[in-house]
């Protein structure tokens, strides 16, 4: 069971093909698989469909794949931080499917759990519900949403052991666990690979059964909105 690879390019070898569907973890620029995204850019794979809550910023995250015109379609809940995205979308170069954030997360979770569809109240009576099956339960109306099944999952975790058990850190967990589960193959980038047995089994956030390939690397971890308070104001 060899899961550890030497680089992002090696870890993606044989997995990429034009027109594929990739589920990516991260929220904004927090907890995004930045090394794997760069490697996909370098590989030049085209016509990609990405399920990712956001689309990065112009020069970081999925934004770098938008710049190189490798993305055909985005499935996201919020894309407000990316000007190039807006330009490509308004000019018709890029397809966009908005999913409510919780629906997107649940679609990934459901796909990973072998659930092809589920009913939710979210979006009833809005554009999101158009064309979807409606059904009443206990006197309330719900719409049918589908589980997501991706060709590849790319996620970022804090630590992995050699068998792929993962631990995330603070709010960088976000979409990473559900995204990890819904792909046929899951490639993970971490800040540190630790010896098997050194993580507390009770503190594993995502068990290694979901994880196929792991790389360790240096992360920029860019901050999107640096907000602070002054020490004086707190006194």
């Amino acid at each position: 069971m060899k899961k550890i690879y030497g680089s992002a390019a090696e870890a993606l070898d044989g997995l990429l093909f034009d027109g594929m569907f990739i589920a990516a973890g991260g929220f904004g620029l927090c907890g995004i698989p930045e090394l794997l995204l760069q490697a996909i850019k370098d590989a030049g794979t085209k016509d990609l469909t990405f399920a990712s809550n956001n689309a990065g910023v112009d020069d970081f995250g999925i934004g770098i794949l938008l710049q190189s015109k490798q993305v055909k379609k985005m499935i996201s809940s919020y894309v407000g931080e990316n000007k190039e995205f807006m330009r490509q979308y308004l000019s018709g170069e890029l397809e966009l499917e908005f999913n409510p954030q919780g629906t997107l997360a649940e679609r990934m979770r459901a796909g990973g759990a072998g659930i092809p569809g589920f009913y939710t109240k979210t979006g009833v009576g809005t554009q999101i519900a158009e064309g979807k099956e409606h059904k009443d339960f206990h006197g309330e109306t719900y719409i049918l949403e589908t589980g997501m099944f991706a060709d590849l999952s790319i996620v970022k975790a804090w630590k992995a052991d050699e068998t792929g058990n993962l631990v995330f850190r603070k709010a960088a967990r976000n979409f990473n666990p559900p995204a990890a589960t819904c792909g046929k193959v899951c490639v993970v980038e971490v800040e540190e690979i630790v010896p098997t047995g050194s993580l507390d089994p009770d503190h594993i956030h995502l068990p290694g059964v979901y994880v196929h390939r792991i790389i360790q690397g240096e992360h920029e971890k860019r901050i999107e909105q640096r907000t602070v308070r002054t020490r004086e104001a707190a006194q």
Partner: protein
Amino acid sequence: MPWDRNQMAERAAQELEDGTYVNLGIGIPTLVSNYVGDKDITLQSENGMLGMGPFPFEGDEDPDLINAGKQTITELPRTAYFDSATSFGMIRGGKIAAAILGAMEVAENGDLANWMIPGKLVKGMGGAMDLVAGVQKVIVVMDHQNKAGESKVLKECTLPLTGTGVVDRIITNLGVLDVVEGGLKIVELADGVTEEQMRDATEATIV
């Protein structure tokens, strides 16, 4: 004098019940956390956190610790982290007592529009549709009128909806309105605002 942003936030904070879990939206709703006083309120950030603390001191920013507005924040002794599916599970499952959100338009039947202006603003709904569908009480905080002086409190929303019949209470610079059978009911007027001024500034039916 109509209320300013901080006074609206202060009024909205009165809506929060002691011992509850609450989600605050971006903009004026974020200011509400400054006015909770002695109440024991746990703030949820839908990117995967309960127990959101204040902004960090300069130099203490952590790229792994942001709120749903992508701002750097801090944790508290009570903080818990979880993934996005779990986060929206607690929202959709009705575990969050209240959401305080901004809005572009609200209608007298409780319809809310706050995510899209066709052809102009294409950013996405983020978690707003899940929040209004799932939380127990939805409170909108917004200016009563837009920059052109037109009412944002309408008989019917004109923009794409975030949810239908979801808003419980509206807090604006002019006062507080509740969504009730047949229209809106004035609960409170801002200091110095008359009922006539409120009615003149409101397109929706006031019962």
